[in-house]
């Protein structure tokens, strides 16, 4: 019983990391319809930039800002120099996916070439362990959950209560109509890549903190979890991505506690497939 309760706590931490990444991914997808499979590779590169600052004495929480900046730069570059030109030429979605896979290889192997093959760890203290019975979390894990909650709230406020958010929703809904209504959609797309790039960079640093040890290829499977959370919640739906992350995060850790840990990720995907069989558009996706 105690391991089961502990796994709920662990699942919340896993869900928090996944939520930051999934919301960033789905924002990009919603506004641009680009399945940016290089997202996880950008996370890794950002995590290593945070590591570079952390090794020079900067607190990892401050170095996360550098990771966010890296995510922004790489994401905007991907949009402007890679995906944008292909979109303008009306490349098919599968063509964009192939391009994204190519960029994944370039960024991932480039990171490994620069950072080396050795796995690294951030210099950070986990802090005291706070326990409520078997529900145990360290201060660092609580901080990750809190950061995720703050970012999700920020995304919620942006989407619901700002003009920018309104413009993003309009562009996501119908880009041509939004443009004809006077919205500068190219600018909205760029701003979306900036926001999602920042979330991507922060997700990379938080991923590194959560994993404890990471290398250039550590996010390979994590991308699949991101896709699972996004499509479980409904592609292009930020609130769906948050919910999907919670289901996947809790599902993987609880299944490791209840069943054998070998299959924890498999069970998460079984849940995903079962949900999509019942509701193909995802939990919060619009029914067609």
């Amino acid at each position, binding site marked *: 019983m*105690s*391991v089961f309760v*502990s*796994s709920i706590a*662990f699942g919340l*931490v*896993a869900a928090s990391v996944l939520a930051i990444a999934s919301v960033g991914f789905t924002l990009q997808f919603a506004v641009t319809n680009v399945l940016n499979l290089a997202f996880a590779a950008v996370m890794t590169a950002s995590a290593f930039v945070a590591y570079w600052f952390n090794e020079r004495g900067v607190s990892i929480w401050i170095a996360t800002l550098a990771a966010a900046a890296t995510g922004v730069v790489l994401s905007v570059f991907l949009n402007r120099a*890679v995906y944008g030109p*292909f979109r303008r*030429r*009306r*490349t*098919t979605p*599968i*063509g*964009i996916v*192939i*391009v994204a*896979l*190519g*960029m*994944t*290889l*370039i960024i991932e*192997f*480039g990171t*490994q*070439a620069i950072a*080396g*093959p*050795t*796995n*690294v*760890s951030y210099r950070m203290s*986990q802090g005291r*362990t706070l326990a409520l019975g078997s529900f*145990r979390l*360290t201060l660092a894990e609580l901080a990750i959950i809190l950061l995720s909650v703050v970012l999700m709230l920020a995304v919620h406020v942006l989407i619901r209560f700002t003009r920018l958010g309104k413009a993003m929703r309009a562009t996501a809904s119908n880009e041509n109509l939004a443009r004809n209504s006077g919205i500068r959609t190219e600018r909205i797309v760029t701003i979306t890549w900036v926001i999602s790039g920042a979330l991507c960079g922060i997700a990379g640093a938080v*991923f590194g903190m*959560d*994993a*404890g*040890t*990471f*290398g*250039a*290829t*550590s*996010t*390979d*499977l*994590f991308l699949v979890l991101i896709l699972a959370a996004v499509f479980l919640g409904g592609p292009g739906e930020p609130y769906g991505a948050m919910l999907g992350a919670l289901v996947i995060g809790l599902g993987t*850790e609880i299944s*490791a*506690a209840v069943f*054998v*840990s*070998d299959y*924890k*990720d498999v069970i998460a995907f079984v849940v995903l497939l079962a949900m999509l069989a019942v509701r193909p558009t995802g939990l919060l996706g619009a029914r067609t």
Partner: protein
Amino acid sequence: MPHMDTEFGTRRRRPHVIAAVVALAGAIAAAVVVSAGATAARSAGSLTIADVAPFTGADAALGPTYLVACDAASNAINKAGGVDGSQLSCKSVDTKGDPADAVPAVRQLFATTSNLALVIGLTSDEAAAVVPVINAQKTVAFGMTGQSEFDHIHFPYFYRLVPADLAESYAMVAIAHFKKHYKRVALAFGNDIGSQTFVGPAIASIKKAHMTLAANETLDLHATTFRTEAAKVIASHPDVILTEALGPAEGAFLSEVKQQNGGKMIPVIGTSAAISPDWYKSVAAAVGASTLSQNFLADNLVIDTSGPAYKAFKSAIFAEKGKVGSTGSFATYLTAPGAVHLYDGINLAALAMVAAKSTKPSDYRAYLEKVATGKVVVHTFAAGLAALRKNQTIAYVGPGGPTRFNSYNESNGIFQIDAYTSSGQVKVLGNLPNAWLAAVR
């Protein structure tokens, strides 16, 4: 008819062709990165040793480790005049740690390297897939895998100077039982082929030693956190954890164990794979160097840490310092199985070529055993070369000790117990008596 852009007189390209070109550029970039450190095979008058191992992917630290041994050995051999005037050079072949990538990479190696004299590396990630290919090409290979299938299937050209996983499992349990008198044992091994082969023999051995199997957790090497797995291990109250999980998994799992156990590390016994600079750097950063030094032991084949063989090996290895990327304590290479045994394998092969008066593997293979079991004991290629020129029979004894191949081309020595100091140096706590191993087999 394709659409013609009449304004510019050029044909419009199809976007998805460009998309495929970008993807191809990505693959080429990956290949360029991997081959950046490789030394290209030279033309006639040189011999190539191929390091077939992961250089990218989760086990990317292994290939470069073996390359250090290859460069150290080949440079020392070249200084002594090479093999009948031919200079040795090392070439990296990236298997990405995946059999699906390894087989095409090895086939390409044979297609493009006409002066290939020897293959080294071959980890448990890819050995089962590529050893038959290499053997069919009649090329001698020294491998690092301890997989149990090679204990029973004979590949005439495939040799191992490292212990079978079966033997290492017994050694780990013997250390836990006889050296430390532990009663409750938890197992935590990675879900790759190489690590999982330890589990069955370890369980049988624990039972034989009348110890209790407290927990058996499989660590998904692609997972990023192991909180629940660590919680399950801690909840079983083990005295010790036996483990092998390559890549970032080991550090991530052990740091979770320490953290959830109130900051206290449960003692750990690892395999010989843990005696490597990259493993130490990764895990020490995760749990703390001091914690690791106080709570970690590993089994390893006996390796000389003094004497003429060790002196020559140390000199050769340290000549490579600074040529390899940041790997942590370089001195750990002096006891790392991947460095010691492949260095010995290359020296054995080079001496066999001299003795056979041929660099063709099909010719010199028969001399591998002969140059290990002759009359005059030598500890370096140069000394062996001098003796062979006097028509003496030699017994090469390198830092890995004497070589005696069994019918499956495996040579095992005695096991020793290794630990790390808090500065990352490996210290030998003693040899593992054969009686201990026999008691748990």
